């Protein structure tokens, strides 16, 4: 039973345009959500997070939106750059001890 799902395995975007990565979850106990970015042969690195008490969090070119009623979150990257090409994972935590549940990842390719 996948509690966190990323339904798009890949996404291709032109440089300078917006990238939108989506994530859905089923467990209503999740109250903290994170996005991680992963390059080949490296471990995931933390990108941005959002608490369930908020519906938006912004950090530079990266914005995460949370829709609790729909159990859906999205990551917006504006403008997209070729260096953003990586696999992006969303993860969820029920704040009971930092035990993250990850989605399957979306491979983003930003074309110059």
């Amino acid at each position, binding site marked *: 039973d996948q509690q966190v799902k990323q339904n798009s*395995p890949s996404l291709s975007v032109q440089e300078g345009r917006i990238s939108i990565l989506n994530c859905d979850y089923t467990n209503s106990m999740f109250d903290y959500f994170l996005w991680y970015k992963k390059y080949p042969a490296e471990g995931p690195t*933390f990108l941005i997070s959002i608490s369930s008490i908020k519906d938006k969090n912004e950090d530079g070119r990266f914005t995460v939106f949370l829709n609790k009623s729909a159990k859906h979150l999205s990551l917006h990257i504006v403008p997209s750059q070729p260096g953003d090409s990586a696999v992006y994972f969303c*993860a969820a935590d029920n704040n009971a*001890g930092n*035990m*993250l549940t990850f989605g*399957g990842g979306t491979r983003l390719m930003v074309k110059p």
Partner: protein
Amino acid sequence: EAGVAQSPRYKIIEKRQSVAFWCNPISGHATLYWYQQILGQGPKLLIQFQNNGVVDDSQLPKDRFSAERLKGVDSTLKIQPAKLEDSAVYLCASSLGAGGYEQYFGPGTRLTVT
């Protein structure tokens, strides 16, 4: 600040053999995690340590997998005997504490079981 170190980076073994992975977390990080990432999937938590005690190992296949964190610093993850389906990247992560702290990941160990 040094990151999370893992070794070896790659390992190829035959099924039924044993293998061990090592992790050195970021200095001062009390919480350590081992994840299994199968190709095309997200990381799955296997075990979480707080200092040298186990917080959660509910997803660790205990008939073949074991992990320890002696002295609350370094950790080893062992598989004995390995199965074909254990082929994956094994990621170690650490955080300052449990609950609300960012997890820092090592580069992982890619295990291939033939």
